[in-house]
């Protein structure tokens, strides 16, 4: 990394000054009777503890730079993302955890392999400085889109079950009968990402780009990375939601082209 000389390292005192901002919110919450003081205090403590713990773990992993440590970290990240995606479903789908785990693992692995191996060409591939933040961004997008698509699929299947049954009764296969709902869910999951591409950089600077600029990169160098990030997030969104919705839709159907209404 170039221009590291320009980075201002934050001291503990400077961090403490930032806490004044939280104190200000707590004052607002008290005066406006928002009742958020407790949560704000807990949130602040959690943010400090979690980020500190992650910092320590990352520092250790960066120092060791062993591929198996990287894989372990990626595995834990995927596990947490899977749980988060499943917990956002309105009603539990049997096997949803496995479906989400497969969808997130495959979509993240495929996108990550392409970005690391072909686009950025990191050598060795497990260089933690690159693979951890990139994997995190991909996983985050896959997770959000899978949850969004899954939630929409559930509500659509429930609301349009008569339409599905009418198609089945006309001799359509189960897959054909749920196709309109699958498509609607995929669209719902992808629209935020597509809209995000439209306004990227205009409304606010993306987090990664901001971080790179703060860390001393030139804006022109940072936007190149940001472009890669935008495109890979698009791919992760599409792949994650596609795999999740296809597999989840299958859970609502039987091999005899029947809709499992009792699951809705």
């Amino acid at each position: 990394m170039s221009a590291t000389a320009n980075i201002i390292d934050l001291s503990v005192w400077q961090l403490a000054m930032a806490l004044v901002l939280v104190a200000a919110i707590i004052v607002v919450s008290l005066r406006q009777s928002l009742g958020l003081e407790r949560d704000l205090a807990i949130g602040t403590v959690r943010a400090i503890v979690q980020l500190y713990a992650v910092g320590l773990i990352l520092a250790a992993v960066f120092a060791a730079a062993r591929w198996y440590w990287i894989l372990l970290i990626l595995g834990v990240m995927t596990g947490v993302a899977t749980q988060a995606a499943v917990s956002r479903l309105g009603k539990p789908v049997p096997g949803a955890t496995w479906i989400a785990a497969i969808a997130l693992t495959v979509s993240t692995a495929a996108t990550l392999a392409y970005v690391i191996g072909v686009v950025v060409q990191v050598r060795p591939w497990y260089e933690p400085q690159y693979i951890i933040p990139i994997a995190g961004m991909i996983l985050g997008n896959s997770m959000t889109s899978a949850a969004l698509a899954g939630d929409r699929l559930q509500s659509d299947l429930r609301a349009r079950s008569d339409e599905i049954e009418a198609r089945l009764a006309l001799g359509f296969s189960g897959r054909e009968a749920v196709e309109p709902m699958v498509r609607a869910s995929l669209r719902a999951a992808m629209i935020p990402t597509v809209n995000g591409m439209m306004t990227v950089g205009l409304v606010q600077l993306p987090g990664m780009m901001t971080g790179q600029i703060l860390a001393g990169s030139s804006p022109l160098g940072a936007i190149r990375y940001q472009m890669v990030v935008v495109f890979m997030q698009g791919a992760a969104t599409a792949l994650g939601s596609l795999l999740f919705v296809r597999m989840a839709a299958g859970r609502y159907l039987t091999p005899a082209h029947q809709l499992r209404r009792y699951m809705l």
Partner: protein
Amino acid sequence: MLGSRRRCLRKFGGMTILHEVVPPDCDENDPIFEVDHLSLDYPGGRSHPVVEILNDVSFRVERGHTLTLVGPSGSGKSSLLRCLNRLVEPTSGTVRFNGYDIGSFDPRELRRRVALVMQTPVMFEGTVRDNLCIRPAGVTGDFSENRLVATLDEVGLESKLVDREAATLSGGEKQRVTIARALLRDPQALLLDEPTSALDPPNALLVVETISRLRASRALSIVAVTHQPDLVRRLGGGLLYLRKGRVEAFHSLEGSDTVLDARLQAFLAGENIAGEGGRT
């Protein structure tokens, strides 16, 4: 239409036998439907117990005849109807169509032979024509203009409706379009799931008239669920009273030798038995 689509796998012991949906050796004297000891449970889960929907139901429907299922709501009538075209899989027991276990047919082909008209008519996006012609890719049939017009006429709709947006039709028109859609597939049997209950009285009457006319002209086998005494009388045939998933009474409207069960008598007199102590 004798290609691989009409062929299906029939599991017989360990062997797999291919045969046509309407087997060439199908005996015209075979009942169209034979239901034996049919039971249906919805599986339980961590948060809810197993729900019993049907319990040991048996009956038969002769070719060209009609059977009407009546009973309180939640008594399993609609589920029973859906067991006949395999939209619902029974937990135990058998359903035979044309003398063959329905499990031996491709469910998609079975459903084209056993058409279902649902309580709330489902119109897909597009015109009436789109709705009449909708079919899975690769499925053939006569969907010519003349046939569409003739079929619309059969259900009492004018031919000019064919280019109307389906969403703009009245409830009664929509229901008759769904009946026409079913007829275009040349079904051997028609399953009617409360076809008039979502309609206002004048529209309901039109649909009742359409159905009773079809019954006479097409010699269709019909299994119907209805709460409407008028439709029951016009359909004739057998009357099966279902309560809490069990057959409580059967009566043939064609012979007058048997004593009519009190509940059926009340039903035919126009009393609403829909709310009577059923499961919902």
